[in-house]
């Protein structure tokens, strides 16, 4: 299990691949479900040229680790990797990576979906968009979209 807050752009597939190689998941996992959230260049129809992600460093790391613990209690997971970007983000850069490994598919898929919503609606991160018409804090994440 691992979580990282990164201030630099990252390659999600490389991080997942590396995590899987570094952690001896051996041959017990049959299922890997992943989700990558990436910065788009438009939101609410206003062009967004960049984004700043602020967070509450001490609480963020703790909160994400708590989410991983809760996911492990709810589902039979062999491993979880969560990476969340902070700082200045450009379009097409990944913002969030969630990867769950389990013996059977339902656990990793359900845990991955649950972690997405928890990270979006509970973890202390805040997005500010740089738009054609100026900067704007994102007030609310969409529900389940």
């Amino acid at each position, binding site marked *: 299990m691992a979580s990282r807050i990164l201030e630099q752009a990252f390659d999600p597939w490389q991080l997942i691949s590396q995590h899987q190689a570094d952690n001896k998941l051996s041959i017990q996992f049959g299922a890997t479900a992943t989700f990558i959230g990436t910065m788009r260049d438009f939101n609410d129809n206003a062009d967004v040229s960049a984004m700043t992600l602020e967070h*509450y460093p001490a609480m963020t790391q703790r909160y994400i680790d708590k989410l991983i613990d809760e996911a492990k209690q709810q589902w039979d997971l062999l491993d979880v990797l969560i990476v969340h970007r902070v700082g200045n983000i450009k379009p097409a850069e990944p913002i969030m990576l969630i990867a769950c490994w389990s013996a059977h598919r339902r656990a990793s898929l359900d845990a991955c979906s649950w972690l997405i919503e928890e*990270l979006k609606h509970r973890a202390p991160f805040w997005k500010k968009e740089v738009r054609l018409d100026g900067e704007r804090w994102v007030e*609310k994440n969409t529900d389940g979209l």
Partner: protein
Amino acid sequence: MSIQVKFFASLKERLNIEDRQIATASTAGEAWDIVTNKAARPDNVLVAINLEYAAFDDAIKEGDEVAFFPPVTGG
């Protein structure tokens, strides 16, 4: 010992306060009132005490860290 009070994101910008230390306060709400000079509390403001979600009425003591922030928008 003192109480550390933090603000984040739009709340930090609107109040123009990032980080303050106050000598004492009995609840998170009292810490808000002291630091913001009794600014109105937005309906959706969130409170954390020592890195855990809490409520304005929750008790705090010296040495605690209290944070106020708007709805989160990560992921």
